[in-house]
């Protein structure tokens, strides 16, 4: 009788692909994804336009009467990164623009990863998912990749937004101290560095499970520890070494933290 029962023998690759399909279908159906992409596009436009409008204006401290001149952005690429060299000191200082640039996306992607993973547990879909998936590795890999893709989209849209905002506010597109190749390498380095952050957010989210508030707080806290590193590792004049470092870091972090995430899923209750 039991001879008629044939159990499918799926390979890891096939199971991984089906997990990707689940996650990408969900990601592209999720309003959250589009909201975050829209934010990534609009933030640099609004920031460039507003900061340019405020350029040169004087703010007076009502208590002391001290006058402060507000400096707006001088260059479109300030929204993308900073330069560590003396030549680019004006662009590389720790002012508002250098803190609130494309690197913000490393923290904003935490919102996506945490809500995306916690929704699996909150909705109860994790039951359907893990009942037919005895191995948790594919879940971790797929979620890391989905977060990475979302992060890549956010970086790309922020870049586009920065250019639109710069054009609208009449900022200079001149590249001082770096070339277009450096700029491309800088973006590639940021892209791979995203893996480090996503791996942290995935780990925190699988620990928090349905508690999305805990996942977001934990992820922002954990991400904050590495946040200052982003501008150092991915300056505007990035070279191949920066890209290599980011790839190595991304792969290493996602593998190590992925193992931890898998362990958490194996050892804790999933519902």
């Amino acid at each position, binding site marked *: 009788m039991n001879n*008629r029962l044939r159990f499918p*023998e799926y390979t890891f690759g096939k199971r991984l692909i089906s997990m990707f399909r689940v996650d990408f279908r969900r990601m592209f159906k999720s309003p959250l994804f589009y909201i975050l992409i829209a934010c990534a596009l609009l933030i640099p436009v609004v920031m460039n336009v507003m900061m340019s409008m405020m350029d040169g204006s004087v703010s007076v401290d009502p208590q002391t009467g001290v006058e402060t001149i507000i400096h707006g952005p001088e260059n479109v690429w300030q929204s993308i990164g900073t330069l560590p060299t003396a030549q680019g000191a004006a662009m590389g200082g720790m002012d508002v623009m250098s803190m609130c640039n494309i690197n913000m996306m490393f923290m904003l992607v935490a919102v996506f990863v945490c809500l995306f993973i916690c929704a699996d547990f909150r909705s109860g879909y994790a039951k359907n998912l893990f009942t037919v998936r005895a191995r948790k590795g594919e879940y971790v890999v797929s979620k890391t990749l989905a977060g990475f893709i979302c992060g890549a989209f956010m970086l790309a849209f922020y870049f586009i937004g920065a250019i639109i905002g710069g054009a609208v506010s009449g900022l200079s597109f001149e590249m001082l101290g770096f070339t277009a190749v450096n700029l491309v390498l800088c973006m590639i380095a940021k892209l791979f560095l995203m893996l480090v952050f996503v791996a942290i957010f995935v780990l925190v989210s699988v620990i928090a499970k349905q508690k999305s508030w805990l996942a977001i707080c934990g992820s922002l806290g954990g991400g904050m520890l590495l946040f200052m590193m982003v501008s150092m590792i991915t300056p505007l004049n990035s070279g191949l070494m920066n890209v290599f470092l980011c790839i190595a870091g991304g792969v290493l972090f996602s593998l190590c933290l992925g193992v931890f995430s898998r362990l958490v899923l194996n050892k804790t209750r999933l519902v």
Partner: protein
Amino acid sequence: MNAVEIKNLSKSFGSKQAVRGLDMTVPMGAIYGFIGENGSGKSTTEKMICGLIPKSSGSIRLYGKDNTDANVRAKLGVLIESPGCFPELSVWDNMMLQAENLSLPDAKKQVISILKTVRMEGAASNKYKNCSLGMKQRVGIAMALLGNPYLLVLDEPLNGLDADGMRIMREVFTDIVKDGNRSIIVSSHLLGELQKVATHYGIIRHGRMIREMTAQELDASCRTYTALQAKDMSRAKLLLNSKYSRVEVDEAGYIRVYDPVPPEAVVTYLYENGVIVTEIMTEKIGLEEYYIDLMKGGN
């Protein structure tokens, strides 16, 4: 080979022991009614079968293989506590997600077919969050049925279903197991409904399996009782109480005499004491009464 074989299964949550040395056997082709009070450990056992919570000790074998075997697990269908659907997605999208999860080659075709089976084809475009309780339950069952699972684990699948829904589910369950290979574990508090389809039963109490039996064994161990109505019901009950050991009045207002006595003896006794019997019948106790009796009797 059995579909499910559980030996000495235990699970503790901190100091609380939810399942204690549970043994359970679900034969192939069985519809296994898994019965117990709230908090008796049914859901915990089902979750352990599906690998959703790690066991503290014991073994769970599905079709002769450990329940951590990825290939065996790929042929499980589950509905535990609530259908795991994303509220903001449509019924169709939720079904397609599960179809992707199961790597179904002909996903659309299967989803359409199963939605038809549970009579949800007209509501496929509805957002899940806008569905009624009964519709949500049907979607949950449909998701569990996707991919023709060999073992279905259903926790309270009949909750929220209307009479037609329950009839459809009975037909679906019977249809699934008719090839003798597929099995279903159903836990439900609707014992009357469960009795209509179950071929095997497992009764759990305080995390321990206190009885496992087939439907035939249940039938054999269910006693008959005499139910009657009389012109003077209160006097009849008083008289019967004084003569027989167990007399109860049921929800429909009939006096039930559970002692093994022929109905004519009851009628004669009441007649001799001036009470006229207007209606009398003999019936067998059902699963519900059997279960209540068993629970009253302790372990």
